[in-house]
């Protein structure tokens, strides 16, 4: 029921009904014996920002990390159900997580720049993937898009570790978008940042929306309501509600959602 609602809205927003960019069908993921998320079915609308909210430990990050198979790196994780990218199951045989991650970028909770120069941070992956254009130009564009270019253009060869936390996180976003991904996954990208850096990154999200489909996990309700078009609410591993953000925050369909967004629990 829930996903039908979501799909309707997504379809209304696009005005078409093609294969969704990302979708899950009955996805259950567990760490060893404990189940992190249970039977989740949803479709992510293209070129929108979808926020995933819910109390801590509800499986937000686990769900997010399943879209680019980052969960593969944890040996005890196993899953059932299907995760579809442009209608193709990303866990099917023959799917290469390396190729997949090239197209689905990710930004992490804690800024994690490589201990290399600022420039190298942005150009490293495109160079590995055999980028055909000018790496310098790509770096400039990417850094400009995250509004970091003016701050760092004179010290591109200096170590990225010398940047402030907010700058580091914008560098990590630049690093991700330099790969020209289709989708950008963001795992609480502002949780380690001060309010000023946070608002800069939120502004950035609006800019990026025209080019990328963005999924953002956040524990910050205001942030979800400010930046996202759609909102998924998870609780204890299950999806409670998925709808247009305005609706989730003004007239949620479920009591639990209402309690959570009003701050009555979580």
């Amino acid at each position, binding site marked *: 029921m829930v996903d039908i609602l979501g799909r309707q809205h997504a379809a209304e927003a696009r005005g078409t009904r093609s294969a969704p960019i990302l979708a899950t069908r009955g996805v259950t993921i567990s760490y060893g014996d404990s189940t992190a998320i249970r039977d989740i079915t949803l479709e992510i609308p293209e070129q929108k920002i979808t926020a995933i909210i819910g109390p801590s430990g509800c499986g937000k990050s686990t769900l997010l990390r399943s879209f680019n198979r980052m969960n593969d790196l944890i040996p005890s994780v196993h899953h059932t159900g299907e995760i579809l990218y442009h209608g193709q199951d990303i866990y099917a045989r023959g799917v*290469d997580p*390396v*190729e997949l991650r*090239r*197209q689905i970028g990710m930004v992490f909770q804690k800024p994690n720049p490589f201990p290399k120069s600022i420039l190298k941070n942005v150009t490293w992956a*495109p160079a*590995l*993937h*055999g*980028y*055909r*254009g000018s790496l310098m130009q790509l770096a400039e564009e990417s850094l400009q898009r995250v509004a970091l270019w003016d701050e760092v253009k004179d010290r591109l060869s200096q170590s990225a570790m010398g940047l402030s936390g907010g700058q580091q996180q914008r560098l990590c976003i630049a690093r991700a978008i330099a790969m*020209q991904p*289709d989708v950008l996954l963001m795992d609480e990208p502002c949780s380690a940042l001060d309010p000023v850096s946070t608002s800069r990154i939120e502004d950035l999200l609006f800019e990026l929306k025209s080019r990328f489909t963005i999924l953002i996990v956040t524990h910050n309700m205001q942030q979800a309501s400010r930046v996202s078009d759609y909102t998924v609410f998870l609780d204890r591993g299950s999806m409670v509600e998925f709808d247009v953000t305005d609706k989730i925050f003004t007239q949620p369909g479920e009591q639990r959602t209402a309690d959570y967004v009003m701050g009555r629990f979580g």
Partner: protein
Amino acid sequence: MSELFASNVARRKRHANLFRWICAGMTWLSVLVLGIMLYHIVAQGWSSLDWRFLNSFPSRFPNQAGIKSALWGTVWTIGFIALFSIPIGVATAIHLEEYAKPGRLRSFIELNIANLAGVPSIVYGMLGLTIFVRWMHLGRSVLAGALTMTLLILPVIIIAAREAIRAVPDSLRSAGLALGATRWQVAWGHVLPSALPGILTGVILALSRAIGETAPLIMMGALTYVAFVPGGPGDYFTTMPIQIFNWASRPQHEFHTLAASGIITLLSVLLAMNTIAVIIRHRSQRSRTW
């Protein structure tokens, strides 16, 4: 979109796989090497390892030679090494962890310990030769050898004991002090018993190292031909590694066989000690509740 990038994933995956196999090969190589080495030793030495070997003194005739004096020499020296090194090592660790205030003296002591741990063992032999054998007139005795080895393994014991003591949670100390105990009472009554398994493990590993050490004892002049069991700390002595060195350095194959038998004996002693250490570590991990 994908024309932006050269499609090089297949090649990169091949490199990744090759790299993985190379690393795996290197890793398992050490298992293979250990297996070959142990097999070689056992194949060489098993046949001549018997009660007569364990119960005979060294001899010019390979078929009469045994390891008795070396075995007992090792037992004597290790006994004295343990007697000296455990109290001094643990006391140093308690001082550094429980009493010493951060400052110049403590850093200087720590620096000394760290550097002593890296001094080549043969240099300790020179120290022992000069200080214990000549200067203190202990001669080439069990006592002089044990004192030399004590200096050699002290840094190892101190480092292990400090780690064990540091692992005891501060809440235990606070609890003791809050009951009106003095710091020594807390250290002796609570911290040390809690840290004991860790300390013991470190001590056993350090003593196994002392058992295998050869160079310092040769350096300070432990005799390589001793046809009696030491009767006290003032007697001449030899140890298992010295005896093995002696046999291995002779050209005749028969002596090499004896060396292999000696190595099996030595490794068995070490294995027994390490098993004890593993059991202690295992037990303490199970019973530890913090």
